[in-house]
């Protein structure tokens, strides 16, 4: 068994035979052409045909991988039409009296060298794009047919590199996965592989050995490892991994696009909780209806000093745009002495859970608070952002918050900076105090979101991390459930909606209870969205409602 290491670009396990793919090298011959005019004509015609092919590829890619990822073919068309590119070719034909093939090839080399010599990794990868469009024109000039990947059965394609157009044309029924010797994870090929769900590994040195052609192999897209002629143990382990992965994917296929509706027609929103900008992909992949909790702390944790309004705005705006109209609930800064953020200079506390944290810091330091709020309001012009305040215990906090919000809005208006007027404002229900005055709080805000982790701790007076207290800890404590019900009833009585963003939301033993309480939204970790949807769709609330509520 031979083990090779590369970079996994898309997770998934492929098991099958290797088929080595060698792109037909268009041998570029140079010869003298006296009639430059008609040679330029020849190039223009080939360019036109290439543009048509790219348009077809774009249309195909839109269906396969969505518009955003298909854009690369739109960019390719722009590159082909670029004046610098075309002038270089036509000038060469004219001044050097050379054939179109040579001019195209030389121009491709020049441009691709320019990109390859750039420091930026992203730009370096663009060299592939220039080569790709030029190869296409060359193939048309030399009357070559578009090379397609052919094989008898499904195979693992092994190649030196794959251009975006080659990747998108991979017949998924024939390709189990692909492995390339070169390639960067910034390349559009990598992006396409991810979107097409084909296990792929790039940058595998020494993979292009003749003797590997036809050999049995396993591609582990998660770890980036290739096993050629795998031994029995490896085979069994990875076969199991493949099975589990397949189950997850089948669930995805089954439930994606389905509604979160019970057997008797009650609906509930299922959103996802994320702690980082980079998790948005998982949110969309798992078909969450929105983001129920975007923990903004990472911006503060990642930075050496307070993140600026621009830095925050950039992140919030991008998330809002990527979520394309789906609700994004962003929680304002929620840190305390237990999180090590040096530049905050938080004094040591005996009881950080009961201390100077979250909204308390924001109200004491309105500059920091306003910076975040301004960034959020500005970003609200780009999508459906809602703002949520953590650790609320009193009406006076709400009053103060609203004053600050009005200040922020007035400042933005004065500077003609657009923002969403009807932006939703909500609060975390995570303290017993908030639950007990939830009738009053519900009049002041648009929604509640129950932070069950902290609510449980404060209500049961228990530190969940303390092993010694395990026997005293009941995550389904009746007191806690009654708290949630009280908050839910008060919310609805006063025209607010209520969601759950704590861990309890994913606890499927309580899904019936939450549905019976009329909870409007549950936000869970992205990988729980679809299992929760499955659970919701299996429940008939009318049958269990009375029983459940009588127990509370």
């Amino acid at each position, binding site marked *: 068994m031979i083990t090779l290491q590369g970079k996994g670009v898309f997770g998934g396990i492929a098991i099958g035979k290797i088929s080595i793919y060698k792109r037909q090298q268009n041998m570029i011959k140079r010869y003298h052409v006296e009639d430059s005019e008609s040679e330029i004509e020849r190039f223009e015609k080939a360019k036109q045909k290439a543009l048509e092919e790219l348009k077809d590829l774009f249309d195909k890619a839109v269906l396969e991988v969505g518009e955003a990822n298909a854009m690369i073919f739109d*960019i390719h068309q*722009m590159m082909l039409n*670029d*004046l*610098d590119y075309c002038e270089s070719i036509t000038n060469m034909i004219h001044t050097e009296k050379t054939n179109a093939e040579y001019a195209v090839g030389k121009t491709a080399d020049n441009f691709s060298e320019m990109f390859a010599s750039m420091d930026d990794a992203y*730009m370096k990868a663009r060299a592939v794009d220039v080569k790709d469009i030029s190869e296409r024109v060359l193939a048309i000039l030399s009357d070559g047919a578009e090379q397609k990947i052919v094989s008898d059965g499904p195979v693992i394609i092994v190649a030196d590199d794959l251009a975006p157009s080659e990747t998108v044309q991979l017949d998924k029924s024939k390709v189990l996965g692909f492995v390339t010797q070169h390639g960067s994870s910034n390349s559009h090929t990598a992006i396409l592989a991810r979107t097409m769900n084909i296990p792929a590994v790039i940058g595998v040195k020494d993979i292009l050995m003749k003797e590997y052609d036809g050999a049995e192999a396993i591609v582990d897209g998660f770890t980036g490892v290739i096993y050629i002629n795998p031994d029995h143990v490896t085979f069994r382990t990875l076969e199991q991994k493949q099975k589990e992965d397949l189950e997850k994917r089948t669930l995805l296929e089954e439930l994606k696009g389905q509604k979160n509706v019970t057997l008797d027609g009650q609906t509930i929103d299922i959103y996802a909780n994320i702690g980082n900008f980079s998790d948005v992909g998982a949110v969309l992949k798992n078909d969450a209806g929105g983001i129920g909790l975007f923990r903004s702390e990472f911006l503060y944790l990642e930075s050496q000093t307070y993140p600026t309004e621009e830095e925050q705005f*950039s992140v919030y705006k991008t998330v809002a745009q990527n979520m394309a109209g789906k609700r994004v609930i962003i929680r304002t800064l929620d840190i305390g002495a237990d999180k090590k953020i040096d530049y905050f200079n938080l004094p040591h506390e005996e009881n950080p859970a009961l201390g100077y944290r979250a909204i308390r810091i924001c109200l004491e330091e309105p500059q920091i608070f306003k910076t975040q709020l301004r960034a959020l309001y500005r970003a609200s012009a780009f999508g459906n952002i809602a703002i949520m305040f953590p650790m609320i215990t009193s009406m006076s906090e709400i009053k103060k918050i609203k004053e600050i919000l009005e200040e922020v809005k007035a400042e933005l208006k004065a500077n003609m900076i657009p923002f969403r007027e009807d932006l939703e404002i909500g609060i975390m229900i995570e303290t017993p105090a908030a639950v007990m005055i939830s009738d009053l709080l519900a009049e002041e805000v648009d929604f509640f979101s129950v932070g069950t982790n902290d609510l449980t701790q404060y209500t049961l007076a228990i530190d969940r991390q303390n092993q010694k207290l395990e026997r005293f800890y009941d995550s389904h404590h009746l007191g806690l459930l009654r708290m949630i019900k009280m908050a839910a009833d008060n919310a609805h009585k006063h025209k607010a909606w209520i969601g759950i963003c704590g861990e309890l939301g994913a606890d499927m033993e309580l899904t019936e209870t939450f549905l019976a309480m009329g909870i409007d939204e549950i936000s869970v970790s992205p990988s729980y969205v679809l299992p929760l949807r499955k659970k919701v769709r299996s429940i008939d609330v009318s049958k269990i409602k009375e029983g459940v509520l009588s127990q509370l």
Partner: protein
Amino acid sequence: MKEFSYVITDREGIHARPAGLLVKEASKFASTITLKKGEKSGDAKRIFAVMGLAAKKDEEIRVIAEGSDENEAIFSMETFLKANL
């Protein structure tokens, strides 16, 4: 001649997708539109030139429009940059 300066806020700088959209936008106008980053300059209607500037986050670029519709061009480019980069 009209011009303005802009500091890139997008994490990825002017990468392929916004470069393409920028070129599309600039190409709507008759005026010559030039992008400058420090010493480097590029024609905003040429995608290789725009990408070649390799303008990254926090870098400042100058946009210069010159021609019959330079006012509209500058306004449009400024709106574009603020919205996309």
